């Protein structure tokens, strides 16, 4: 699937050494060596002469051109947020020269580096936590982990498990970065079962407000919340009787406690479950589950 976007030589070199099913990240930085991440280990790729593969600025520019299908303007809303989503949920993070107009970011030019993150559907990865999160109803849950530790993979599988367990809930997915479902031309590229309505590339505020009004969801699932910006929308949904599953970046509960508004979450008991993931045994390793009083109800045996 990356064949259409990557430089042909680089694509051939990568496929000669690795299988795309095991690669989680490909990093290209201008004038630096190509890095491929497999199972949390970084590899510097060498060419046929045994030299490290150096990435030129041109390779990055061409990659961005192909990834945006020669239509930067059509992807600009995403580009100003620093990423493009490709088919199969592949997310391309990009850095470059930010063009501003006053406070507003207009676009990004002169791309300097790209980080291609390849998602993997890990079936049943949420099963160990499933019974803790679903009783008669789905509990309001916050999934916590550092970047690249499988939050999105976890919630994807959790939604799929609801479907396979025949828990017939209307699931509204507020997919701000089009990462959970990778919807391309109106079709999700990732199978999440048959109960999902999906808002992509819109703010959580919009998705929560309009979704509750128009789609009558039982459960809203969203990725990477910002406790300062998104908490009001989450509270509104919970107060409307809609359950919420969200993810947030934090290494563990101690780090989460330092985030703004966490006291409010805890005091008002907005979330009944806190699921902590890590990369200890690969992305998505279930480490702890806490209840609303922060009592540990599941702890991974080491």
């Amino acid at each position, binding site marked *: 699937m990356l064949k259409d976007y990557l430089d042909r030589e680089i694509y051939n070199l990568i496929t000669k050494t690795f299988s795309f099913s095991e690669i989680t990240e490909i990093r290209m930085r201008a004038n630096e060596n190509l890095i491929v991440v497999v199972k949390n280990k970084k590899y510097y790729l060498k060419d046929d002469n045994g030299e490290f593969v150096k990435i030129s600025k041109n390779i990055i520019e061409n990659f961005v051109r192909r990834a945006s*299908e*020669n*239509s*930067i*303007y059509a992807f*600009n809303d995403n580009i100003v947020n620093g990423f493009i989503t490709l088919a199969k949920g592949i997310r391309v993070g990009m850095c470059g020269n930010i063009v501003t107009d006053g406070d507003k970011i207009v676009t990004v030019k002169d791309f300097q580096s790209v980080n291609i993150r390849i998602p993997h559907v890990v079936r049943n990865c949420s099963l160990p936590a499933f019974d803790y999160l679903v009783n008669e109803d789905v509990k309001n849950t916050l999934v916590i982990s550092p970047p690249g530790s499988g939050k999105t993979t976890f919630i994807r599988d959790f939604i799929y498990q609801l479907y396979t367990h025949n828990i017939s809930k209307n699931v509204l997915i507020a997919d701000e970065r089009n990462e959970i479902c990778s919807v391309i031309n109106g079709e999700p590229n990732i199978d999440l079962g048959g109960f999902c309505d999906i808002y992509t590339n819109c703010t959580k505020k919009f998705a929560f407000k309009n979704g509750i009004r128009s789609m009558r969801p039982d459960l809203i699932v969203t990725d990477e919340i910002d406790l300062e910006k998104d908490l009001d929308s989450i509270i509104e949904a919970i107060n409307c009787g809609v359950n919420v599953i969200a993810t947030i970046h934090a290494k563990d509960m101690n780090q989460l406690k330092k985030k703004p508004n966490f006291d409010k979450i805890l005091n008002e008991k907005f979330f009944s479950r806190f699921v902590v993931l890590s990369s200890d045994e690969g992305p998505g390793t279930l480490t702890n589950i806490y209840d609303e009083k922060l009592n540990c109800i599941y702890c991974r045996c080491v």
Partner: protein
Amino acid sequence: MIKWILIIILVVAIMMIAYSVSEQIKDKYDFFNNLKQFLNEFKINLAFRQEKIDEFLKKNNSKKQFKIFIEEYSNFLKTGEVYLEKIKVLEDEDKQMLQDIVKNIGKYDAKNEINQMESFLLMVDEKLAKANEDKNKLCPMIIKLSLLFAMGLAILLI
């Protein structure tokens, strides 16, 4: 009898050549007219629908020379190379302008793309005005002159 047939063939041949030359001039005008329309429609696309270029190109149903341009543009999206040799009605200078257009569309955000379209449209307007002038002046002149030439030749041969 053979002499008459040969004269008729000669007159018809001269007229056909003149007709094809004037058609080429008309085709050039049509090409720039289509290009102007294409750029204007793309400008509207940028302002509202923001369809990707390949989707936008698929909707274009132009004929003749502009169809070749659309095909070559689609190839460029796949290969990154522009070949405009097949477009017979254009001069090298026109082809260079087309290359610039093809290579620069899609590189910027919508606002800057629209600004870019405005500048392309100014260039195309100049070309269109020149092509229109050629069409209005040269086409009737070529037909008239070739008719006169053919008739003169026929009289001489008779």
